[in-house]
């Protein structure tokens, strides 16, 4: 153990860790600003901040555990993890707690637990194992279909909750990992074209609210008080921040509750309004550090498995960051994907830190002990 700790302090990526810790505090500050006036549960202004702090701590616990288990053990358990995720997702559809007509949560003690978040980590692990073992077989187009089937099953289960956004995250993780694993570009191009051509068919399966979101993305002013409201208000909030922002706790849009879901999906708008361009660029910079270090870890990994694990973690965070910020600025449809390390939400926060755990693990085990 002593040896491990020494290696840890010797090899750990402090830049990465610093960025993550900084982000967590940054997130708590913004979360406090956006919830202090409206916090529920006995109107304790620190209600959300306290809960989130607790979740960050437990996230770091998971992170620590993950760091110390050599990722090479994954070969033995990847299938178990994958099927575990499937079972949980089925359970949540059958017996989960429903909010806004969607069944996404399982109740465990005082916490609501969202299996679809952990399934992201499970998918990363499973695909890394599968792709690293079968890299050479992918020149065969039929074999290439397997990862799609595995991922598709998870996507289908999440889609049934229904949760379009999360199923798109699975798809993004898959596509990026396939790309990095060295899949022929023509296969990927073919897949993308096939996917696009199936959009009209998928359209039939979309729920009305999902269709509306896509329509409103194209023109939010169609319904300025309904579905388009969020995006319009969010743009106003971000834009009105200007260079330095209104100052923390002083955003008109956020403090007066014009921003819906401002502590979850639209927390970026609060950053934009209260901390301005300086605040948003700082945030982007911190994310850039994490992603850059993640790619670096993938490049320096000991083997393909480690490289793909790191790639999976990076792609997960990357997709969430771009889609969430793009959505807040009205550049991408409102898919309801939270912002890593900032959005309020326990399962997601823990999944973020588990992804960081994966990165640190790969980094730590780039040498054989």
């Amino acid at each position: 153990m002593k040896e491990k700790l020494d290696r840890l302090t010797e090899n750990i990526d402090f830049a990465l860790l610093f960025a993550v810790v900084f982000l967590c505090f940054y997130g708590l500050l913004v979360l406090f600003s956006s919830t202090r006036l409206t916090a529920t549960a006995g109107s304790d202004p620190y209600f959300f901040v306290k809960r989130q702090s607790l979740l960050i701590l437990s996230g770091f616990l998971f992170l620590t555990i993950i760091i110390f288990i050599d990722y090479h053990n994954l070969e033995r358990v990847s299938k178990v993890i994958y099927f575990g995720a499937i079972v949980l997702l089925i359970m949540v559809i059958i017996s989960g707690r429903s909010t806004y007509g969607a069944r996404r949560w399982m109740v465990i003690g005082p916490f609501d637990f969202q299996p679809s978040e952990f399934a992201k980590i499970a998918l990363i692990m499973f695909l890394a194992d599968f792709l690293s073992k079968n890299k050479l077989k992918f020149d065969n187009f039929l074999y290439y279909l397997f990862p799609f089937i595995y991922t598709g099953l998870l996507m289908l289960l999440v889609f049934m909750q229904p949760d379009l956004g999360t199923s798109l995250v699975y798809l993004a993780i898959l596509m990026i990992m396939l790309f990095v694993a060295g899949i022929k570009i023509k296969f990927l191009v073919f897949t993308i074209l096939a996917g696009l051509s199936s959009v009209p068919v998928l359209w039939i399966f979309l729920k009305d609210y999902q269709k509306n979101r896509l329509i409103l993305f194209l023109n939010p002013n169609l319904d300025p008080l309904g579905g388009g409201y969020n995006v319009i208000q969010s743009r106003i909030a971000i834009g009105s921040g200007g260079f330095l922002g209104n100052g923390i706790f002083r955003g008109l849009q956020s403090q007066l509750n014009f921003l819906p879901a401002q502590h979850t999906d639209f927390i970026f708008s609060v950053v934009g309004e209260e901390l301005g361009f300086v605040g948003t660029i700082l945030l982007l910079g911190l994310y850039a550090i994490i992603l850059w270090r993640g790619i670096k870890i993938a490049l320096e990994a000991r083997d393909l498995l480690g490289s793909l694990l790191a790639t999976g973690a990076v792609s997960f965070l990357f997709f969430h960051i771009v889609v969430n910020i793009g959505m807040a600025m009205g550049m991408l449809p409102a898919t309801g994907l939270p912002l890593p390390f900032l959005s309020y939400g326990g399962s997601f926060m823990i999944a973020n830190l588990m992804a960081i755990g994966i990165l640190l693990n790969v980094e730590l085990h780039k040498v054989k002990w």
Partner: protein
Amino acid sequence: MRESSTVPEDVKQRLNWLLIFIVICFLILAISLWYLQMIRGEEFKGRAVENCIRSLAEDAPRGRIYDRQEEILVTNRPVVVVSIIPAEVDDLEKLSERLSKIIGIYPEEISQIVKNYRENPFKPVKILDDCNTNMTVEIEERKDELKGVILEVKPRRNYLYHDFAVHSLGYVGEIDKEGLLQYGNQKLQGGDIIGKIGLEKYYDGILRGEKGGKEVEVDALGQEIATLLYQKPVPGKDLVLTIDKDLQLYGENLLFDKKGSIVVSDPNSGEILALVNRPSFNPNLFANGISSSDWQRLSSDTDYPLTNRSVQGLYSPGSIFKVVPAVAALEEGVTDRKRKIYCSGTFELAGRIFTCWKGIGHGSLSIIDAIANSCNVYFYTLGKDLGIERFSKYMQKFGLGEKTGIDLPEEAIGTIPSAQWKEREVKEIWFPGDTINLSIGQGYLLLTPLQVHHIITTIAAEGEVYKLHLVKKIISADGNTVEEIKPEIYKKINFSSDTFKIIKEGLRQTILKGTGWRVNIQELAVAGKTGTAQNPQGETHAWFIGFAPYEDPEICITVFLENGGEGGEAAAPIARAMLEKYFNIKN
């Protein structure tokens, strides 16, 4: 021990591509943020402020209206208005449905009203105007399931006696597009209440007061967080009318089933004591925003209840007009107290025969007898001798063809024929026969009852004519008198006192032994003149003008009955009843 990495080269290459892709995405995000926050920052800042600052108007209570004894006639009552704030509604269809069950308006209609209103989603959209207590209670109780519905208490005009003096009082309503243009500089907005006709319109600036309001900071639910600015509304000022409520009511009852009007005024001040117009309507219908079926019914009624007959209606005056040529002839020396003219029952001019109303003729008459018996032939002769030029001059002196200047916005000026007028309007030259018709108040001549009233006032006041008016004083909301309306001389007409004396005698004789005998009240010396005017609309108009007491006139009266028959038979008894009422004479 560090071993060399076994990560394949192609994977490393792909990872570098991924890094480039990530960098590009981040650059796009950063540039977008630059655009949104740095380039359009100011614009969005404005929109954010606009988002959360709201101006809320607070209506000023409109001034009340009292009669001359300061008995209240028009006031305001609080009504509960049901509105929806579009921005607060989650599911309009559901809300409409729930609200529909309480207020009884079709759900489709409710959602349509809200959808049609696209101005400011935080401004309440009125759904139901005057909701009753049961509805109010039910909406309060179900507040939770009616998110977005608000109840507002607003002052509503209340005409206590319904159609009482409605044509004078007028009514109020929401300002329309034209009104907004007209009052452009007065801070009025759509939905504001203004006077539409009558005194409500004429004195709108005084009655309306000044809207107050506040600027508040609101949250996304439109709930007020803080008041930034508050301006108290300035209540409108009250009007005290010259109208005597009892006399007016009495007159209205006299004309209950008739068409016509009664004007009663004080010749020594111009104060109007009663201004009766029938038929009438209920102005409260307008105060609530008149329904299209009510409007349809009122505006298509062939008895024209919306018309203020005494100031807008144009009628042939008939024989009551004879006073004018009589004055003209006396002043011009065409006739005098002694000149007698023989009435054979007919009068011939240029081959045309004009008849007197009395077929067998009146015989030889002086001007006093001619007035008393309303002899046409006497006045035909005066008309012929005067000629239209001199005749016109005296009509002008009487102020005919001008507004009386009453404080009502809708006054008509009438048709006063002259040679020039006929050439201009009828494109014909003036025939001597036209003058003959004019001299008995027929032909092209059309006057409003108020103008006719001016004639009798001129005689009663012997040329010192006060402006007719309906408002005695204006009182501020706190009760301090603000302005007393002083009697104002409208016109000083310098006819000789002899002329007035002769005319007055004629009018007195009319009552004592002539056509006006039905107004011969023992306790009261009345002077007057009857008129029966032929008109193209059918049955003759019945007229009576008069004043009393004869020696020192206190009031002047004009009675007009549209298609009411004979002046002496129909109009005179009504005048008598009014005079008895005013002078408190029991019969």
